[in-house]
């Protein structure tokens, strides 16, 4: 060890010793002061964790849509005006053109959607029926757990076949296997051919509360809010190969649709195209803001805790003015006195921070068990919390420490 380093280490150990002694002597006071920082760190750590949990949850919701994809739908009426909506009717021919002409497209999932009432025996379930083609399974990673998926033949024949989500099955049949049963969808009989593998829920959104029918059957049998032409789609999912730029595919789809509908440059597109990547980014931004707001609010309690530290350090300096004078007489430099009180404040805050962290970990575990909502506290957050506590100590202990170090030796010594 270099002498300078050993000297510094020796002084640091010495200051730590003084700090621990001082804290032990005023144990009750130390505990109460620490409590303020504990509560502050508890609040901040939980805020960070809840924010991360929200992010994880929303990302999960996006992932459950399927892997990389673009979603295409016409501009809603109230946003683009009636004429644009008319002109911008998304059709099956558009979908086929996208699949055929754009590189990196793995599958397309053209859809119609309707809210329906499904009845079986005495039970009924209100859910969303989605008219799909077999491509839906590929784009959204949907798998038939038992039975089969909607087939090409179903679509060609506009067959009255239906694949049910787990939630719908439970509502209508309980534990009974309904394959082959007939259910009435908006009073039209459909035959159950398959059950979808459960995807669970994210942020209260149940991913298994749905029913799939052939798109052709949906067009014939269900009424929707807009009158539909024989070829119209309500929404189109475009599956995209891994590693292909979603932004590039989006631009190409946009150009293709503009060409097909002869939209002039400078004119708004009648279609909205969103990619999973954009959802991710927007989500990250929104949850990031959410998290920042939470942390900002929680920080106020940490600020209050810090002020408590400052207060108690000022008391400590006043009480020990004579000791400060003595130490100066014995050769302590201003920096020695300053560091002594800084270390004391930092140690106080770090102990408080550690307690707050443990409380937060316990609360997160309880919360997670009760609310089925992830509240992750990572190692980084934990280390950050402790270091941040130390910084709070240095910050709020700084002024009292500097005040102590500026005392005149003789005036400090004369203090009773």
């Amino acid at each position, binding site marked *: 060890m270099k002498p300078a380093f050993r000297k510094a280490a020796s002084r640091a150990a010495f200051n730590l010793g003084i700090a621990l002694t001082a804290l032990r002597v005023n144990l009750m006071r130390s505990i109460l002061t620490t409590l303020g920082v504990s509560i502050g760190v508890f609040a901040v750590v939980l805020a960070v964790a809840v924010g991360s949990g929200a992010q994880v949850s929303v990302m999960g919701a996006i992932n459950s849509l399927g892997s990389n994809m673009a979603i295409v739908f016409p501009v809603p009426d109230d946003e683009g005006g009636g004429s644009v909506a008319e002109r911008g009717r998304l059709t099956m021919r558009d979908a086929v053109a996208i699949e055929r002409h754009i590189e990196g497209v793995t599958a397309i999932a053209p859809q119609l959607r309707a809210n329906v009432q499904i009845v079986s025996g005495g039970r009924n379930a209100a859910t969303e029926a989605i008219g799909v083609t077999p491509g839906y399974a590929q784009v959204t990673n949907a798998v038939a757990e038992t039975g089969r998926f909607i087939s090409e033949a179903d679509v060609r024949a506009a067959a009255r076949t239906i694949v049910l989500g787990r939630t719908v099955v439970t509502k209508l049949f309980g534990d009974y296997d309904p394959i082959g049963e007939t259910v009435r969808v908006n009073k039209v009989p459909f035959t159950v051919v398959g059950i979808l593998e459960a995807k669970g829920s994210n942020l209260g959104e149940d991913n298994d509360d749905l029913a799939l029918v052939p798109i052709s059957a949906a067009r014939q049998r269900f009424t929707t809010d807009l009158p539909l032409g024989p070829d119209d789609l309500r929404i189109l999912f475009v599956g995209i190969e891994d590693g292909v730029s979603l932004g590039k595919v989006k631009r190409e789809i946009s150009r293709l649709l503009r060409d097909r509908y002869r939209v002039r440059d400078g004119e708004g597109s009648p279609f909205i195209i969103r990619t999973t990547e954009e959802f991710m980014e927007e989500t990250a931004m929104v949850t990031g803001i959410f998290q920042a707001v939470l942390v900002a609010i929680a920080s106020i309690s940490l600020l209050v805790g810090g002020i408590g530290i400052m207060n108690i350090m000022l008391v400590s300096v006043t009480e020990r003015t004579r000791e400060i004078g003595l130490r*100066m*007489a*014995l*050769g302590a430099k201003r*920096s020695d006195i300053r560091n002594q009180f800084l270390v004391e404040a930092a140690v106080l805050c770090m102990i408080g921070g550690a307690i707050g962290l443990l409380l937060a970990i316990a609360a997160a575990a309880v919360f997670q068990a009760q609310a089925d909502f992830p509240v992750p506290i990572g190692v980084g957050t934990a280390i950050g919390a402790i270091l941040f506590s130390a910084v709070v100590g240095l910050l709020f202990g700084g002024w009292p420490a500097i005040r102590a170090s500026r005392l005149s030796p003789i005036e400090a*010594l004369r203090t009773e």
Partner: protein
Amino acid sequence: MTVPLVETVSLVKEYASGGGTVHAIAGVSLAIARGEFVAIMGASGSGKSTFMNMIGCLDVPSSGDVRIDGTATSAMDSDALAELRNGKIGFVFQQFNLLPRTTALDNVAVPLIYAGVGRAERQERARAKLGAMGLGDRLDHSPAKLSGGQQQRVAIARALVTEPLILLADEPTGALDSQTSEDIMQLFQSLNDAGNTIVLVTHEREVADHASRRIMFRDGKVIEDTPVTSRRLVKP
């Protein structure tokens, strides 16, 4: 000619007080040589303690200078003064000023920490000094478990542990009974006999008579500076 250990040059200390100026020290020039045992006397308010604090570099003069071992201190910053106090000056106080809840050994080692001495050497030197003060069996006692005389011995050990050039004692027997006072004065005398330079502030004639030179202060000025003729030597 040898350089005096402590030399004051036209030393002045003023305080603003209720619109007027109080001259605590009103121009004092004197020199203390190596090996002297000086008693500074005077009534309370005579400036004796202020003078002591300034030659101990605890207080800064309004004008004039204090030279320690030939070095002027008026231009020194607070760090340099701290180093000077640490290395060249040992303080003994009336109220002992030991750190509570800290063992005698650790109390004595404090100045060595500020001198940057390593732990093992600190312990060894502190132990040796306490042994020399006859407290070899009280190393682990906290001040509360020691008598007044023992506490003052710990304080003297602490003052001497850095081997300072001069020992400054401000009313070192002021809080002690007469028998213990005699013991402490005997200790100072033997330290002086061993070559230590000592400056002692007291208002008691009997205490001052242990010294070899007596300086009387009144109204911030030296009114008498004489060798002690009938020196009171305590028989060991």
